[in-house]
């Protein structure tokens, strides 16, 4: 099973450029999430989705956008990249709501903005 697949694994952007981080899961999970991981800071929730067509903001949504047109895919769009968006981004999914179901994570996308 592929689980949660993220692309690309690495990317370098210039300030002001835009890009999309792709995330796909093949487990038919309704719930999907985007986190960023900064050293010593743990994981911060950017956006989440409870099903196709439904998305909501997390703790740190500024500078990002998402869409959820299918159950499988949950792309994260960075508009006008800034150095503060240099981070490792993780996509995750869960079958159940988080109060009972564990998260399945992708392997991460390391983004550097110069």
């Amino acid at each position, binding site marked *: 099973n592929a689980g*949660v697949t993220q692309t690309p694994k690495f990317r370098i952007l210039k300030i002001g450029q835009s890009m999309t981080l792709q995330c796909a899961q093949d487990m038919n999970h309704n*719930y999907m999430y985007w986190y960023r991981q900064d050293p*010593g*800071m*743990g*994981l911060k*929730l950017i956006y*989440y989705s*409870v099903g196709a067509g439904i998305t*909501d903001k*997390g*703790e740190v949504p500024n500078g990002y956008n998402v869409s959820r047109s299918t159950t499988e895919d949950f792309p994260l769009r960075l508009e006008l990249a800034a150095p503060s968006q240099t981070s490792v981004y*993780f996509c*995750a999914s869960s079958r159940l*709501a*988080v*109060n*009972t179901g*564990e*998260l*399945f*994570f*992708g*392997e*991460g996308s390391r983004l550097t903005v110069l």
Partner: protein
Amino acid sequence: AQSVAQPEDQVNVAEGNPLTVKCTYSVSGNPYLFWYVQYPNRGLQFLLKYITGDNLVKGSYGFEAEFNKSQTSFHLKKPSALVSDSALYFCASTSGTYKYIFGTGTRLKVLA
């Protein structure tokens, strides 16, 4: 505000010795508590969870965790550490919302 604290940035333990990685929480309502492990350049992997019931929860790779309501703690333990247990460990909680609250992580180093 809800929070999860991992008071130790790093824990060092000799191979074969017992290990403990500490976690305390502050959440409203019933806490749902989780431990995840992250190996280098990988995503987080689920280890175990406490939802309700027995305070001692057993999980993957021989790990277990003890839920203590009076001390608001959920410490991760293993009776005998392996070098391969060396990784970054995250405690997380949620109290019935769609969102996890993660601790800042504890790096476990098991010395041969």
